[in-house]
C-alpha cells in the first residue's frame, strides 16, 4: 500500500466541541491546523448530544446582556464546583474555568449562537447549535477538516510528538500525519459500557494512545452515570429525556414492587438529589442500590412516572424541552400519553461523563512534549463529581489548548517521524485482518460492556472489581491478539474497527478498575460498598497512572488547593453528600 503523508503544524484529534475550539484558536495563531474526526464533523462524540447548558456566574451573564443572578459571583461558582467535586478538584483548572467562561460565551455570542433561555447561572442552547457555530467558524479561519478518519497511534521522535497514524474508516487506508504538536480532544470512553448514552465512536482512543505514548492519566475511577436514562424501549435506549424532565419537574421513581425509591432518605438529599444536577450522582446511586437489592425491573432499571406532578405543568415543560414531544428525529408522543395517564417507563443509570483522563498542566500540556489535551479526554476541573457544565469545560479548555499547542509548534521545528514506527503500527493494526479462527470482536466487546456496567457502576466492591480485573486481564492476554474478522476486505470493516477499539477499551477499563480498587473510600461518583466513608485524612489525592518501561505504576498526587482548604476526618458517604449539598452558595438554579 502506498505511503501517504499528511503534513500540518497542529493536529487536532476529535471533532467535538473541544477539538473544534482548539482548532479555531490554533488557526488564529497563524499555524496550519488539521482537525481529524472519527465521526461526522460537528455531529459526533458527546457534544451534539448535549442539551445543552453553558454555565457561569450570573453576574458575568448579566454583563453580557443575558438574564442571570447579579448576586452571583466567580467566588461562589468556584466554591460550588469544588464542594460538588468533593474537594478532589484541581483548583487551578477550576480557576481557569471560572475566569475564562465569560469571554468564551462572548465569543459564542459573537459567532451567532442561538440561546433558548437562561436561568440564574446558565444559558441553555443546544449541542448541535454550538457545533454548527464552531464548524462555520473553523471553516472561516481555514482549519483543514477530515471526517471518518480515526487516529490509531501517536508517533514520537526523541521523546517528542512528531505525528500520528490515522485510518480512513471508509476506505481502510492508512494516513501518516506529520505534525509539530497534537491536541487530544477525543472525548470519553462511553463505548466501554452497555447500556450507554448513545455515541458509538467514543472508545477512549485518545486517552489510550496518549497513555501508550507515555502521558500520565488520572482519576480514572471517577465515572459519572446519568440517572433516569431510558432503558426501554430499545429505540429510545440511552436517551436522557426522562432525566431532563425529572430534573425540571420531579416525578415518581419506584422499584419493581411499586415502592417509592426515595422514601427513607434525608429530605435534603431528596430535594437537592432530584431537582438539581446532584441528581446524577445521588439518583444513580439510589437506583443501583435498588438493583443490587433485587428490586430492579426486567432490564435492570427502575420505574419513572409523573407521580403527583400536575400534568398541565409537565406538558408545559415538555413543550419547551421537546416541542410536540419530538427531539430531533425522536418521537416521544407515546411517552407523553403514558405520562398523562401516569403510567411508568423503565429508566436507569447509564455512563455519561468521565471525570478523569489525561493529566494536563496549566497550558494543557501533557507529560509528553508537544502533546496537549482538552475537554472530556483530559483530567478536568470537576474532581470526584461533576454538577457544572462539561460544555463550558470543553470550550474553555479547547481554546487554551489550541493557543498553547500552536505556540509550541511555532517555536520548535517538528522532528521527523520514524518510517519504521509507522510501518510497525500499521502492521499491528492489520493483524485482525489476517488472523483466522480467532474470536469475534463484537461478541467480545458486548460481553465486556455489560460487565463494565455492572462492576464499574456507581456502586463498587473489592470482590467484584477483582473478578472484573481478572476477566479483563484474561482478555488482554489471550483474546486481543486472537481476534479475527469474517470480512477481510478493508472497506468500511466494522469488525476490524471493533477489534482496534477493543484494545483501548480493555486498557482503560483495567486502569479504571484498578484505580477503583485502590481507592478504599467513597467519594463523589465512586461509592465503595466495603468502604462507605469519605476519608478526607487518607484520600484527598488524585490517582495518577504512569506507564513505566514494562509495567503500569499507580501513584497518588495531593489535590491542588491554592484557594479552598478541604475538610478533615472520616464521614459516612450520604452524610458527606448532604454537607456538600448544603455548602452550596445562595445562588439558585440547577447548578
Amino acid at each position, binding site marked *: 500500500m502506498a505511503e501517504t503523508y499528511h503534513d500540518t503544524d497542529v493536529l487536532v484529534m476529535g471533532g467535538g466541541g473541544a477539538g473544534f475550539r482548539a482548532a479555531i484558536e490554533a488557526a488564529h495563531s497563524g499555524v496550519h491546523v488539521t482537525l481529524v474526526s472519527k465521526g461526522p464533523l460537528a455531529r459526533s462524540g458527546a457534544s451534539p448530544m448535549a442539551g445543552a447548558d453553558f454555565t457561569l456566574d450570573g453576574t458575568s451573564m448579566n454583563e453580557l446582556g443575558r438574564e442571570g443572578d447579579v448576586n452571583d459571583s466567580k467566588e461562589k461558582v468556584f466554591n460550588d464546583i469544588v464542594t460538588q467535586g468533593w474537594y478532589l478538584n484541581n483548583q487551578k483548572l477550576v480557576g481557569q474555568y471560572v475566569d475564562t467562561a465569560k469571554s468564551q460565551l462572548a465569543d459564542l455570542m459573537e459567532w451567532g449562537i442561538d440561546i433558548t433561555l437562561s436561568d440564574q447561572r446558565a444559558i441553555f442552547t443546544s449541542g448541535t447549535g454550538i457545533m454548527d457555530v464552531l464548524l462555520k467558524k473553523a471553516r472561516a479561519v481555514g482549519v483543514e477538516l477530515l471526517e471518518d478518519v480515526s487516529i490509531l497511534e501517536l508517533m514520537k521522535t526523541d521523546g517528542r510528538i512528531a505525528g500520528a497514524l490515522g485510518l480512513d474508516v471508509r476506505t481502510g487506508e492508512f494516513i501518516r500525519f506529520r505534525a509539530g504538536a497534537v491536541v487530544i480532544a477525543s472525548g470519553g470512553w462511553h463505548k466501554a459500557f452497555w447500556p450507554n448514552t448513545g455515541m458509538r465512536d467514543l472508545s477512549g482512543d485518545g486517552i489510550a494512545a496518549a497513555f501508550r505514548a507515555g502521558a500520565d492519566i488520572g482519576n480514572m475511577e471517577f465515572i459519572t452515570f446519568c440517572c433516569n436514562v431510558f432503558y426501554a424501549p430499545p429505540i429510545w435506549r440511552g436517551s436522557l429525556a426522562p432525566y431532563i424532565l425529572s430534573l425540571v419537574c420531579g416525578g415518581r421513581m419506584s422499584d419493581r414492587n411499586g415502592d417509592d425509591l426515595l422514601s427513607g432518605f434525608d429530605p435534603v438529599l431528596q430535594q437537592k438529589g432530584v431537582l438539581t444536577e446532584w441528581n446524577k450522582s445521588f439518583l444513580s446511586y439510589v437506583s443501583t442500590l435498588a438493583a443490587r437489592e433485587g428490586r430492579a425491573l426486567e432490564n435492570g432499571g427502575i420505574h419513572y412516572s409523573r407521580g403527583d406532578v400536575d400534568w398541565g405543568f409537565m406538558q408545559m415543560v415538555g413543550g419547551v424541552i421537546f416541542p410536540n414531544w419530538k427531539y430531533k*428525529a425522536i418521537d416521544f408522543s407515546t411517552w407523553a400519553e403514558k405520562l398523562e395517564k401516569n403510567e411508568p417507563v423503565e429508566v436507569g443509570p447509564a455512563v455519561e461523563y468521565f471525570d478523569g483522563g489525561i493529566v494536563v498542566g496549566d497550558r494543557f500540556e501533557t507529560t509528553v512534549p508537544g502533546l496537549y489535551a482538552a475537554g472530556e479526554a483530559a483530567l478536568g476541573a470537576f474532581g470526584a463529581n461533576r454538577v457544572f457544565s462539561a460544555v463550558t469545560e470543553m470550550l474553555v479548555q479547547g481554546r487554551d489548548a489550541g493557543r498553547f499547542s500552536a505556540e509550541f509548534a511555532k517555536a520548535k521545528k517538528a522532528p521527523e517521524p520514524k518510517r519504521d514506527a509507522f510501518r510497525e503500527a500499521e502492521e499491528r493494526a492489520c493483524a485482525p485482518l489476517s488472523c483466522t479462527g480467532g474470536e469475534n470482536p463484537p461478541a467480545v466487546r458486548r460481553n465486556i460492556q455489560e460487565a463494565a456496567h455492572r462492576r464499574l457502576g456507581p456502586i463498587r466492591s473489592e470482590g467484584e472489581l477483582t473478578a472484573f480485573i481478572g476477566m479483563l486481564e484474561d482478555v488482554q492476554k489471550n483474546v486481543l491478539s486472537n481476534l479475527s474478522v469474517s*470480512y477481510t476486505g478493508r472497506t468500511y470493516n466494522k469488525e476490524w474497527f471493533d477489534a482496534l477499539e477493543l484494545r483501548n477499551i480493555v486498557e482503560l477499563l483495567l486502569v479504571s478498575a484498578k484505580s477503583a480498587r485502590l481507592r478504599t473510600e467513597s467519594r463523589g461518583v465512586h461509592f465503595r460498598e466495603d468502604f462507605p466513608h469519605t476519608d478526607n485524612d487518607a484520600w484527598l489525592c488524585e490517582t495518577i497512572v504512569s506507564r513505566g518501561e514494562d509495567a503500569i505504576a499507580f501513584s497518588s498526587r495531593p489535590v491542588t488547593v491554592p484557594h479552598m482548604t478541604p475538610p478533615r476526618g472520616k464521614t459516612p458517604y450520604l452524610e458527606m453528600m448532604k454537607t456538600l449539598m448544603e455548602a452550596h452558595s445562595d445562588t439558585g438554579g440547577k447548578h
Partner: protein
Amino acid sequence: MVQKNITVTVLRTDPEKSDAGTKQRYTVPFTEGMSAMDVLDYIYQHLDSSVAYYDHAGCGLGICARCTGRINGKAGLFCQTPVDGGGELVLEPTGKDRVQRDLVMKKK
C-alpha cells in the same frame, strides 16, 4: 408468550468483489419497541458480523443523521424507524450508485 421473529432481507454490496446487490436473509427475535438499527445490531452481534452499516460513529438517537437507508422501500433513519414483530423487513442503501459497502453510502 410466543417469541415473535422478524424476517429481514439486507441488500449487500461488496465493492472489493464488484458484486452489486446480493439479497441476504436473516431471522431476528423481535423485542417491543425495536428500531431497524436494533435489528442490524442484532445481526452484527449474533448472526453475521460481516454486514456493514454506518455505526462506527452513530448516535443511535436521531441526532447525527448518518444512519440513512431504505426501510421497506421508504427512506429514513435506521435508528428511529420502528419495526413490526412477525413481519418482513427489507433494508437497503439509500441509492444504488454510491454504495461504499452494504448499507453504507459514499460521501457526496
